[in-house]
């Protein structure tokens, strides 16, 4: 039982933090939001930091790191509310590395690690809500070639990604496929989402696809759990910075002739934010440290962590806006952007009520960190 970070891990944190502080200020981010919510140049910078290859094995040109390093990177990106979707890269590399045939791995993983290719998970469908086992997109095989048809929604950077990991029904079972955005029959329609990042509707019509795995639901569940651990870590980073911004504001803004940090009603709310942040940080550690555990244990841990994170993110985000007063609801000031990021994170890979249901359904007689 040890929650200290190694020297290498601290160095990774420093490197990412430095890049966020120096290379990703609020003005640069605002410009990216105004031009569509994604900047390939930024993504290349993430690759230069080695982050796009974080999960990719050394054999395929990556760093072969684990969930704790991923957590650290996501936390730091969260502090800067970075728009470019590293979580998607982590998910795609893990799924391909664990489940894809060797030829798919060797053709995609090195390019993912190097930042030349962006691969994202395209699983969301209208009507499926947060249930991974509800899927209408269908796959067909003819003459050794798979094709997929149907529509996926709210796909992160869907109109700029190079390929998608697509769950589709193959003979009644969910399988996972890799579909290139440039393949025939692929149509994308991009837009910005509430947090300023980019997404797209992805329509597939008899689009050529490569089979990743027939056991798609298992792989998809793993992908969603990696996504959840990323959300926990990113959320902690976002909240950490949100609280710091709020504390600074409370110590600067004056009313009734004194700084408003002197008012007990506001101080108690700040204390409650700190509580939510530390509970969330604890559960983010828990999520990342349980990510490699057997499925039942992992699923239970992710659901618990996401319930905590969802509760914390909503409270911290709403409180930060409230404590700022009028300036908190403007677009100009930074804090509303942190609030919107927290809101979007809570609703990605299952929302808080969904995860509460998962916790509820999985309860055993005894419960604790180790059970």
């Amino acid at each position, binding site marked *: 039982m040890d929650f200290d970070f190694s020297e290498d891990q601290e160095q990774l944190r420093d490197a990412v933090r430095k890049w966020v502080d120096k290379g990703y200020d609020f003005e640069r981010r605002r410009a990216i939001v105004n031009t569509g919510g994604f900047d390939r140049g930024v993504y290349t910078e993430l690759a230069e930091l080695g982050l796009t290859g974080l999960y990719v094995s050394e054999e395929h040109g990556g760093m072969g790191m684990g969930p704790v390093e991923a957590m650290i990177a996501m936390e730091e990106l969260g502090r800067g509310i970075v728009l470019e979707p590293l979580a998607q890269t982590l998910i795609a590399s893990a799924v391909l590395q664990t489940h894809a045939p060797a030829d798919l791995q060797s053709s995609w993983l090195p390019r993912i690690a190097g930042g030349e290719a962006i691969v994202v998970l395209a699983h969301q469908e209208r009507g499926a809500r947060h249930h991974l086992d509800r899927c209408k997109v269908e796959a067909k095989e003819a003459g050794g070639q798979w094709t997929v048809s149907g529509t996926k929604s709210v796909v992160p950077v869907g109109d700029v990604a190079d390929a998608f990991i697509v769950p589709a029904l193959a003979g009644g079972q969910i399988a996972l496929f890799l579909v290139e955005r440039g393949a025939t029959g692929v149509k994308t329609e991009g837009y910005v989402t509430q947090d300023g990042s980019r997404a797209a509707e992805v329509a597939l019509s008899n689009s050529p696809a490569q089979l990743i795995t027939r056991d798609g639901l298992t792989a998809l569940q793993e992908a969603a759990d990696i996504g959840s651990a990323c959300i926990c870590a990113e959320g902690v980073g976002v909240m950490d910075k949100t609280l710091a911004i709020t504390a600074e504001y409370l110590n600067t803004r004056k009313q009734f002739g004194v700084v408003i940090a002197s008012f007990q009603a506001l101080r*108690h709310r700040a204390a409650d934010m700190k509580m939510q942040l530390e509970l969330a940080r604890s559960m983010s550690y828990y999520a990342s440290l349980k990510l490699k555990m057997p499925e039942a244990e992992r699923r239970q841990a992710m659901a618990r962590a996401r*319930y905590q994170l969802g509760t914390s993110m909503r409270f911290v985000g709403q409180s930060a806006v409230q404590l700022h007063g009028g300036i908190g609801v403007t677009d100009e000031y930074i804090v509303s952007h942190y609030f919107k990021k927290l809101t979007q994170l809570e609703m990605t890979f299952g929302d808080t009520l969904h995860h*509460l249901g998962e916790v509820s359904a999985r309860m055993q007689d005894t419960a604790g960190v180790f059970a």
Partner: protein
Amino acid sequence: MDLAFTPEELAFRDEIRTWVHANLPKHISDKVHSAMRLTREDMQTWARILGKKGWLGYGWPKQFGGPGWTAVQKHLFEEECALAGAPRIVPFGPVMVAPVIMAFGNAEQQQRFLPGIASGEVWWSQGYSEPGSGSDLASVKTRAERKGDKYIVNGQKTWTTLGQYGEWIFCLVRTSTEGKPQTGISFLLVDMKSPGVTVRPIKLLDGECEVNEVWFDNVEVPAENLIGEENKGWTYAKHLLSHERTNIADVNRAKRELERLKRIAKAEGVWDDTRFRDEIAKLEVDIVALEMLVLRVLSAEKSGKNSLDIAGLLKIKGSEIQQRYTELMMQAAGPFALPFIFEAMEAGWQGNFPGGTVANAPLASNYFNMRKTTIYGGSNEVQRNIVSQTVLG
């Protein structure tokens, strides 16, 4: 970073588990698991068993006869005791006054008082709060006037937990009215059998007499019972409050009580009611999150890196959880938690409890009793003041 305990820590846990199961009397653990009333004898019996093994002062260093355990070992010991249904160690002697005597008492005081605390023979009480000094503890008025080789003590303490059983009491007394309130306080040990000490139990909202008023009417206390220096008592009291930071969260007991809540929910037919069950699920997440928070503190203490200044958070969250599980237990039983039959909370009561399940008898009383947790030990509002200082300065 690693969530798992080390093999050595796990071996230690197994050793504790085996010993506790072999030595904790079943008639006592049965009462704890069903929240039946514990007698002074129950608590003393367990204290003496631990004392004989050398574990009543489980937080003590070796030089004072303690086991010299690490923070993680202490946590594992607390966990095994709690899960097995051991009564909570009455903290006033071994957890509260003993560390002060070790740190600030003289050799003679250490030899005189520590053995009786370590063995569980002597029952200690805490004389801190007064009718006019709750959250503002530094305003204590109980006077101790030096007369030759004695102090003459006059005043009143209150909320003295289990003071009706007390044999000795450690008190914050006023020895000076000069300067700031904090600088005129002394830490005095008083034999409760002394002439002029009167203890009056206070009946609480649950019908139990858990706390007391303690009056001091010209009580003569030998000056040798003063700990450390006169007027330095506030410093010693703060040392006491900073001791055993994770203990206050009581997460291990919460884990045991969560199990009990699930048993009650099943027995009362609300386990399969989604609306109710989700409330249990929320509590389960709260408890896991609190446990992780406690483990983070332990890890920081183990490595000496990344010290975590979050004692206030542990107190707030731990106390809220204690209130919540008693609340849900009572709600699970619904109307069958309402009959107030005082004797039904005695183990072995032979009457018929309305609804037929005597396990429901203590639920409302437990709920009422637990309202204290967000009030004592520095109210949660005071804790929020402390936490806010770490955020806002």
